């Protein structure tokens, strides 16, 4: 049997394909190899390696940057599941470093302090795929236009409050339905209003979903939160501070994994929520000094 073949890395299909493999699962923020092990043991589909979870970034203030490569490498050596890491918005040099480290996905993230207030990273230029946050459909499609292979609704990271995640997810899915019901004449004006590339708006109108998977992040802290956003259309969930800032992180990690898979079976959500200990304390959104979701444009 002979194979004369051209092998191609970094194609859109393999970059979006890894996001497809994560669907239904939970991606957990971890700050050291021990937490990464807890996440993998609990059935996480990937970990996000970062120096401080968003709740601590919020508390400590200062400039939040890409993590120390040594810490990322220690986590890569500890787990067999994909390892993601965050770069600052627009900081393509941090992204180049993360690609050189062989991380599996880069999150160009509003949780870190933005490096460029006009431009996001040209993500087509990379072999490694990118995930980006979005608060609405226009923002999501601008990120896809720049090469993002996975979109997460932003929510408000580090608050333990799901309200912003719900707002952003509903905003995206409601506008997708609006595109679907628009007639051909209206789609041009819709693309203009959304400030989104016309071909992507036409694609959404035809397929009824984003060109890439849609996950949810930002403020999820209980199994019921995971169930809620999955029922609202998120295909997987990112949980940041919600696990390792809870009373019993091991149990919380297991419970949220079960909840994401069996999101539409309330008896499972009830079972895994029982005797779970307290979730992270959380912040009421109106009391916040800084809205991370407003970063990125």
């Amino acid at each position, binding site marked *: 049997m002979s*194979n004369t*073949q051209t092998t191609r890395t970094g*194609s859109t299909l393999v970059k979006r*394909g890894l996001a497809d493999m994560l*669907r*239904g699962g939970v991606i957990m923020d971890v700050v050291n190899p021990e937490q990464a092990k807890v996440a993998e043991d609990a059935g996480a589909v990937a970990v996000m390696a970062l120096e401080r979870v968003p709740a601590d970034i919020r508390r400590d203030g200062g400039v939040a940057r890409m993590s120390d490569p040594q810490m990322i490498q220690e986590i890569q050596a500890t787990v*067999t599941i994909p390892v993601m890491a965050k770069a600052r918005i627009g900081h393509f040099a941090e992204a180049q470093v993360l690609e050189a480290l062989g991380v599996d996905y880069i999150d160009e993230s509003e949780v870190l302090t933005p490096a460029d207030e006009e431009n996001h990273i040209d993500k087509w230029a990379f072999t490694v795929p990118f995930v980006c946050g979005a608060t609405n459909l226009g923002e999501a499609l601008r990120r896809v236009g720049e090469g993002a292979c996975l979109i997460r609704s932003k929510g408000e990271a580090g608050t333990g409050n799901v309200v912003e995640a719900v707002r952003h997810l509903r905003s995206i899915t409601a506008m997708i339905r609006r595109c679907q019901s628009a007639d051909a004449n209206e789609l041009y004006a819709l693309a203009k209003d959304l400030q989104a590339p016309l071909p992507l708006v036409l694609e959404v109108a035809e397929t009824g979903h984003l060109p890439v998977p849609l996950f949810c992040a930002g403020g999820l802290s209980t199994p019921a939160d995971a169930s809620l956003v999955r029922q609202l259309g998120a295909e997987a969930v990112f949980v940041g501070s919600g696990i390792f800032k809870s009373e019993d992180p091991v149990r919380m990690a297991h419970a949220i*994994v079960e909840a994401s*898979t*069996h999101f539409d079976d309330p008896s499972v959500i009830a079972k895994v929520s029982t005797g779970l200990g307290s979730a992270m304390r959380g912040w009421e959104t109106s009391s916040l000094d800084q809205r991370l979701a407003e970063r990125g444009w």
Partner: protein
Amino acid sequence: MGSVGVLALQGDVREHLTTLTSLGVEAVRVRTPAELESVDALVLPGGESTAIAHLLVTSGLRDLVGARLTAGMPVLGTCAGLILLARDVLDGRADQWGYGALEVAVRRNGYGRQIASFEAPLTLADGSRVPGVFIRAPRILECGPGVEVLASYAHLGGFDPVLVREGPVWGASFHPELTTDTTVHRLFVESL
């Protein structure tokens, strides 16, 4: 032929359902013992093998799937699904378990991390071509005597088996479900 289930705990379930449905097969999601009971064949999709293995245990499906495999139920595993079916898994977790239903040894992430994930055309035994999409793919290192190699990929001067079959159990290290080519699913369905 009855219905084909797709294990729906985690991973690219929808793509398998779409491909099977396009072939005129009744395809259903399997997340519970009752749903497993109702199907005549099963697809183990792509995803994260550690997460799917974990969820098989917590959902009470692990031993039931094992019993059906022993009883001869046809199964197709792609990528993570192949890892779950393999006899030996290298570079897995210390507590990695599998069904051992396919006499192959695989190395997890055997072609490297995501930046090494690739597309390459593959040649089937009958000379026809299928697109291969490999994502953090397992690499098949060894096959037992009862294992038929249905497609290979030229790699490092040799040929890696990428689609294998041992009786009713099929495994692919790539993702036929991610492309519009339905050849692999059609061959599996025709064998039922």
